[in-house]
């Protein structure tokens, strides 16, 4: 049994290998070279992520290929999303810098978990088999359960971890049952093989299994990407988890979840099926289900977000709403739009959470929107970036959020979902209310009580600078990123027809 037949290809999983080894190295460092210095652990983590990012980018342009007996696939889609999740992880490392110090948390295990989570996310973006999808999701969620509960002496954090865990495991069971039923219908778990099977007529039993299986998969993915009505865990977890972790949760695992969702949707359900085939019927059902989910998600997320008084909860609901926008991209089957939106969302949301983390400070004490009153002119170094991010989240032109939204809307419109687009733009207006409310509180209200200014540590300064510049760069000069995406399109044109 030669290496070729197994499809062993180390360079294909090099980013994962590097990150996993870095995680292990961190743990070993803790054993043999103990220190509570966050700097050393952080630098090791950053180095690992940086090398992994380089490894990912070096793969750019390699022809589309599967590896490990069809378990994973290497294409530009995977590389792009892997790059996104690695960048999200890098930003999360910067965000955690201070948090670890203030909470006196032992840093190595934290960073190791972050890296393992990154491994899971990267695998998720490349999985080409339902088994890999399942394992990738589990690797991500198991690490993040722990990260969510990392402030161990704080009840909110513990409860967040608990709720996340129970609902996460619950949804995993649904996902798994879906996988089992799909396997029962098609006798395989490989995505291409499933597509081949679906391109033929199935018998009644198999079709029924496929339908229910697809519905279960949808539930499972719905949980992972915080789509309504499977979003219930999101606000609590986002509120309770330590803010840097929340920032990470809202972008990294979500991007990875969307990658897997998109992969499954597009490869299994998005192909051009013969008219008589089982896939055709399934495809339309799937798309309309996702469309309904998108509408519910964005509307619900935005409406509830208005009523929130806690900024973390507000951002949680906003994150749900944004998931709704991204689902439009899945409906439109335009993965580049989704990819761009996730890049934009990563940059602006991490930035927003960076400010929130900084203001919340030790023990997540100042997280009410009221606590921001009078911040505006007193600390422009914080309020200005936050305003930029909020404006970008609203989707005002000139910022990353606008270009991303614009593209999604355009794709959905071209795909013929004009109603969806109209609902989405109405939602955008709704969202303006609560995003700009924060701006109001910051700039238009006087401080209720005297607050000492928050120091701006270097790591945060760097993060904020990068994210603000990124927001404007993506908003004003997106051409370069577009052209990368464009190249990718030609490389995997057959992924979505």
């Amino acid at each position: 049994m030669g290496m070729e037949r197994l499809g062993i290809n180390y360079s294909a999983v090099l980013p994962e290998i590097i990150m996993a080894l870095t995680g292990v190295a961190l743990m070993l460092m803790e054993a043999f070279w103990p220190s509570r210095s966050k700097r050393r652990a952080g630098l090791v983590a950053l180095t690992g992520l940086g090398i992994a990012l380089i490894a990912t980018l070096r793969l750019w342009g390699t022809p589309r290929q599967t590896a490990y007996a069809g378990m994973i696939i290497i294409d530009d889609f995977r590389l792009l999303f892997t790059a996104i999740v690695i960048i999200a992880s890098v930003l999360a490392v910067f965000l955690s810098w201070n948090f670890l110090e203030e909470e006196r948390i032992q840093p190595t295990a934290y960073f190791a978990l972050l890296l393992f989570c990154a491994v899971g996310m990267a695998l998720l973006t490349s999985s080409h088999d339902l088994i890999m999808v399942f394992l990738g999701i589990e690797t991500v969620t198991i690490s993040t359960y722990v990260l969510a509960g990392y402030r161990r002496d704080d009840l909110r954090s513990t409860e967040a971890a608990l709720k996340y865990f129970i609902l996460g495991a619950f949804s995993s069971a649904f996902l798994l049952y879906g996988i089992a039923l799909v396997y029962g219908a098609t006798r395989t778990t490989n995505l291409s093989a499933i597509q081949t099977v679906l391109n033929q007529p199935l018998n009644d039993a198999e079709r029924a299994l496929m339908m229910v299986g697809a519905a279960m998969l949808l539930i499972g993915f719905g949980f992972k990407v915080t789509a309504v009505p499977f979003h219930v865990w999101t606000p609590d977890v986002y509120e309770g988890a330590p803010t840097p972790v929340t920032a990470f949760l809202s972008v990294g695992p979500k991007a990875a979840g969307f990658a897997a969702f998109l992969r499954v949707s597009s490869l299994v359900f998005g192909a051009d099926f013969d008219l008589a085939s089982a896939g055709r019927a399934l495809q339309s059902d799937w798309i309309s289900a996702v469309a309904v989910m998108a509408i519910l998600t964005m509307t619900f997320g935005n409406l509830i977000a208005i009523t929130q008084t806690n900024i973390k909860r507000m951002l949680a609901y906003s994150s749900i709403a944004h998931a709704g926008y991204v689902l439009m991209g899945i409906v439109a089957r335009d993965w580049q739009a989704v990819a761009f939106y996730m890049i934009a969302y990563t940059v602006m949301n991490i930035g927003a959470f960076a400010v929130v983390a900084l203001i919340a400070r030790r023990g997540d004490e100042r997280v009410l929107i009221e606590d921001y009153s009078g911040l505006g002119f007193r600390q422009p170094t914080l309020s200005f970036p936050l305003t930029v991010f909020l404006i970008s989240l609203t989707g005002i032109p000139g910022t990353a959020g606008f270009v991303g939204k614009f593209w999604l809307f355009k794709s959905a419109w071209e795909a013929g979902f004009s109603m969806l687009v109209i609902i989405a733009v109405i939602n955008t207006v709704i969202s303006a209310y609560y995003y700009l409310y924060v701006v109001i509180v910051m700039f238009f209200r006087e401080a209720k009580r005297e607050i000492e200014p928050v120091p701006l540590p270097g790591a945060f300064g760097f993060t904020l600078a990068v994210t603000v510049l990124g927001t404007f760069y993506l908003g004003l000069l997106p051409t370069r990123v577009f052209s990368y995406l464009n190249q990718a399109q030609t490389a995997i044109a057959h992924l979505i027809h």
Partner: protein
Amino acid sequence: MEQLFFIIFAGIALIGAVNLLLRRNPLYAALSLLTTMAALTGLYIMLKAYFIAVIQVMIYAGAIVVLFLFVIMLFNIRVVERQTDRRGYLKWLALPFAIILIGQFVYIARLFEGNPTPVGTEVGLTEMVGRKLFTAYLLPFEVTSILILAAIIGAVVLAQKE
């Protein structure tokens, strides 16, 4: 004969599951689950999935449920006394939900009745499983090591005392 065995095992499994649903003491719930698992082991043997049958006992019964019992005993959790109404409505939701789900599944399952292909003989052997695990499923197998490592670190981090 085989059908009789199936009915016995399935009956035990169902009793265990229903008991799990009804019991309020987590200890009894755990033991009910154990019963179900034992019955499932019997079914796996009937399906000639020997390897799965054995590791079912080893992992589920031998590790997971023991862990549960350990935690239950650690906190010496007795009956959860309080009866709250907050989730009462969920119970009423659950019943129709259950009927729909079960009906749907059973309907689908019945569609399969037409083709009772014989159960495989070769497939369940440990050697076959092992061979496949280390060839086609090599990468997932390796990924589980990361997963378990993350779980171990996580569990230690969370549960350790300062």
